[in-house]
């Protein structure tokens, strides 16, 4: 079992997302995260799916995805050098006594405070999943009020591209 990050170009048509999600549930594949948004070409969306499975299962996942009529291209990013990033918004307790510490922690992780209230900060943090996990771990757990993560987006390094 290993973690794979699969990128998919898909026609921007109603129902395409449920077709893909349905494929994963019908065939018992794992989805750790799934992100989707239109690309520079409005007729197409790009999806990043993070999944875990044996090599055989991941091979089947890419083949089954390719079979879906609306899917234009599929690559397994984790087969080669790639970059992945995830965005997290995290709302933390930041009363008078925590404020400075919290600001320092955000700085160390290169996060940005994007909303401030009397007793909270909302911090924006980007990185790979491990970095976001590390930030959460480094905080006093009692100070975390709310977190929201986008799931990973990925792109190949250098000349490795996914386009039509």
């Amino acid at each position: 079992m290993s973690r794979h990050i699969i990128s998919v170009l898909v026609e921007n048509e109603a129902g395409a997302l449920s077709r893909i999600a349905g494929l994963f549930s019908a065939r018992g594949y794992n989805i750790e995260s799934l992100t989707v948004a239109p690309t520079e070409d409005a007729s197409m969306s790009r999806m990043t799916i993070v999944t875990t499975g044996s090599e055989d299962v991941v091979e089947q996942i890419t083949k089954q995805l390719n079979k879906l009529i609306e899917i234009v291209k599929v690559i397994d990013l984790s087969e080669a050098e790639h970059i992945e990033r995830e965005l997290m918004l995290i709302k933390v307790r930041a009363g008078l006594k925590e404020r400075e510490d919290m600001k320092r922690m955000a700085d160390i992780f290169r996060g940005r405070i994007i909303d401030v209230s009397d007793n909270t900060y909302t911090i924006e943090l980007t990185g790979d999943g491990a970095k976001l996990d590390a930030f959460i771990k480094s905080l006093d757990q009692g100070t975390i009020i709310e977190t929201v993560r986008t799931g990973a987006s990925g792109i190949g390094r250098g000349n490795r591209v996914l386009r039509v």
Partner: protein
Amino acid sequence: MDRIKTTTLNGAEIVIRCLQEEGVEFVFGYPGGAVLYIYDELFKQDKVKHVLVRHEQGAVHAADGYSRSSLKTGVALVTSGPGVTNAVTGIATAYMDSIPMVVITGQVPTHAIGLDAFQECDTVGITRPIVKHNMLVKDVKDLASAMKKAFHIATTGRPGPVVVDIPKDVTTATCEFSYPEEISMRSYQPVRKGHAGQIKKAVQLLLEAKRPMVYTGGGVVLSNASGKLKELVQSTGFPCTNTLMGLGAYPATDKQFLGMLGMHGTYEANMAMQHCDVLLAIGARFDDRVIGNPAHFAQNPRKIIHIDIDPSSISKRVKVDVPIVGNIPDVLDEVLRNLKEGKTQDIKAWWKQIEDWRAKDCLKYDRNSKIIKPQFVLEKLYEVTKGDAFITSDVGQHQMWAAQFYKFDKPRRWINSGGLGTMGFGLPAAMGVQMANPGATVACVTGESSIQMCLQELSTCKQYRLPIKIVNLNNRYMGMVRQWQQFFHGNRYSESYMDALPDFVKLAEGYGHRGVLIDKPADVEGALKEAFSKKNELVFLDFITDQAENVYPMIPGGKGITEMILSEEL
């Protein structure tokens, strides 16, 4: 550029025009609220003929049988809600066997979608996992291209059913109509040619093989490659086996044919599968009913070449050494061309071994029985129809016996639900077969349990004067369920006996057909001859058969391909 002449049509007219453009001869369907305008347009023309079934499941199975037994695409037309849910079993059946089909479904008007309207269901959602593709057409301007796409997708690549869901208001809305001559989709471009390097590797393996085996499935039938398969097998002298779905792709009466393989395959076919050194798999998918336990299958070292149009069928259950993705006839052309440049090995020793296996005569049964043996009926059916009938079947023991005992020499003659295993398939499928092949001999081999699942279609057969011969192997049990209960559940026949069966003779007569009861072995042949001499009549032959008969050989579920239970006769 020439301007294509257009006319303003409403959605219902467009549907019919598209069907006409596609050369559709028959639509199998059942009217209802959401498709009333489409039915109105059907009424106004006579190019596309409608076949009125008695239940939507029957419509889809009939379209399916039509498709399987011809080179044409089956079309079904049903209304929204219950029309669709009734059609679901038929669609799933076609999907599992990769049958090209277009199913047009009515939908509630666009403004009512999502409001739990009368006869509303999420058709696209319900059918999504059982179609090759489906579409909800919300704008009449997209209708013609959706129809074109539907036929294109259904029939190309690995074929399959496509559902086009059309809201009622789209059938009344109008737009300029022109039918697209061609369609190109960047997201859907099935391959045809196989990889030349892979083909060379495959041929090298075939030339070196000392114990070669050719194993082919439904893909050879679907891609109309049986001529090329025959050429390959006969020019190499290799043994060949067909799956349940592939029967008829290679002539069953030829000596190089080892019979069907798999759970109820022949001893020789299963043994040869396990002991070959090079296996050429064509349009088959190593499924659980074919090779049994994949770990057991992998115990013997062998090189596997796998030709299939669908990459996801390759290395799914069994790792292969030389995958070749492509359209089977194209790939076989190349294989044949390359083979001519080399010489195959002497495989006499291998054939000797196969003949020893064959000598077991694994399909033998008690020919002196006082009770009718189902195998005997099928042997006689084969003789009486001179092996030239179209045979549809339902699902269970009778299906396996038909597959074992009717020797199909031609493709598209054996019509059965192999993947989904749908009881109730046989009779409506036979209607489609008869529609596609008027004048041909069509028999539906069934059992008293299966036939009752789509029995209402006897009425359709009457309306369209379909002279189908129903061969009912009546053992008063769900035979295959009973067999499993005998073997694996300590003879506890839980709910597999059917009490209060109808009098099938009277039932057939009630629908306006002829019914015959046969309960003695001596009467079997005469009854079949008599029935098949009636060219314009449906005859329901109710054979009272041995309740205790089992299908042999049998690989128990989860066991290896050579771990067969053989008949007590052995």
